[in-house]
């Protein structure tokens, strides 16, 4: 049941991203997706596999839910945040966007912990706050560098 729920949430978030008018180009969105994905997966793998602070349940349904959440939902939420933050110059808009993204990511994490897809071992929601804060900050930094550069032309590099 939990897998069904998370796949439905994944669909909803993907649909939201599809419908969103995106100020970032296809290439920029992909770069952000890849970079965020690598960062998130490496961090979570270290926490689970290496230091053992988080334990992932081994049942197929739970493991697939974890994969959907870690590999798709978190990077997608960060991607949506990057596009929304870039869309509007107003600081109040940016702060609202970042806050909503942060809240959504925390909510999904809470659900994941509550249904025991993951179990905290010497870990708690304060660390989760710090971790997601780092993810968001990293995402915004990469977005800033991507948008600061402006668009580069293909023709300049064509041989």
């Amino acid at each position: 049941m939990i897998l069904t729920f998370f796949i439905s949430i994944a669909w909803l978030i993907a649909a939201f991203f599809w419908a969103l008018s995106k100020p970032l180009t296809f290439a920029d969105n992909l770069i952000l997706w890849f970079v965020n994905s690598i960062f998130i997966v490496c961090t979570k793998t270290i926490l689970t596999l290496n230091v053992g602070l988080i334990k992932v349940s081994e049942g197929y349904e739970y493991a697939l839910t974890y994969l959907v959440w870690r590999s798709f939902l978190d990077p997608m939420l960060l991607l949506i945040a990057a596009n929304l933050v870039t869309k509007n110059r107003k600081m109040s808009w940016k702060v609202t966007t970042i806050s909503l993204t942060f809240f959504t990511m925390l909510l999904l994490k809470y659900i994941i912990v509550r249904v025991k897809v993951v179990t905290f071992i010497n870990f708690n929601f304060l660390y989760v706050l710090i971790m997601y804060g780092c993810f968001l900050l990293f995402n915004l930094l990469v977005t800033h560098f991507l948008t600061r550069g402006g668009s580069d032309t293909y023709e300049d590099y064509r041989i």
Partner: protein
Amino acid sequence: MKITEYDHHFNANEWFVLITLILGFSLVFLLPRRFSPRESILYLLYGMFSGKFFDHTISLKPFDFYDVNDASSFQFMDFISYAMYAPFGYIFIYLFDKFHIKRWVTIPYILFWSVIAIVVEYFATKLGVYHYKNGYRLLFGFPIYLVNQSILIWIYNKIKRGKVH
């Protein structure tokens, strides 16, 4: 979680990763430019992302089909091995663009590169970069390479069409 260790030394598998990384990136930097910096980064990142994606899904429980390098835990050399995949993606799409490969020729091109990927993986496995488990075999990776490369070509075409418009 029980960690399986395969060896403790800096040896063949580490050298394979480092040499492949150095050779790959040397080729990337030496080749005449065909893409903008942003596109180049994208194609390099795709290689890294796809390697990481499979190393962190089918190589972990409940699938657990293989381990990478010296132990089943995530090590620094594992991260370096993701970077090792990056030049493959770039060179794949570089040659695709350079030789103006289109339509039906795309099919043997992808098949050829998938065979190359399998051969490289074979040598990597022999040198201890990959340790197969739970019935996984070398040729299981072949369709994964086919899909991976198809996705990269789709990305390339989408970017190219975007520039034309």
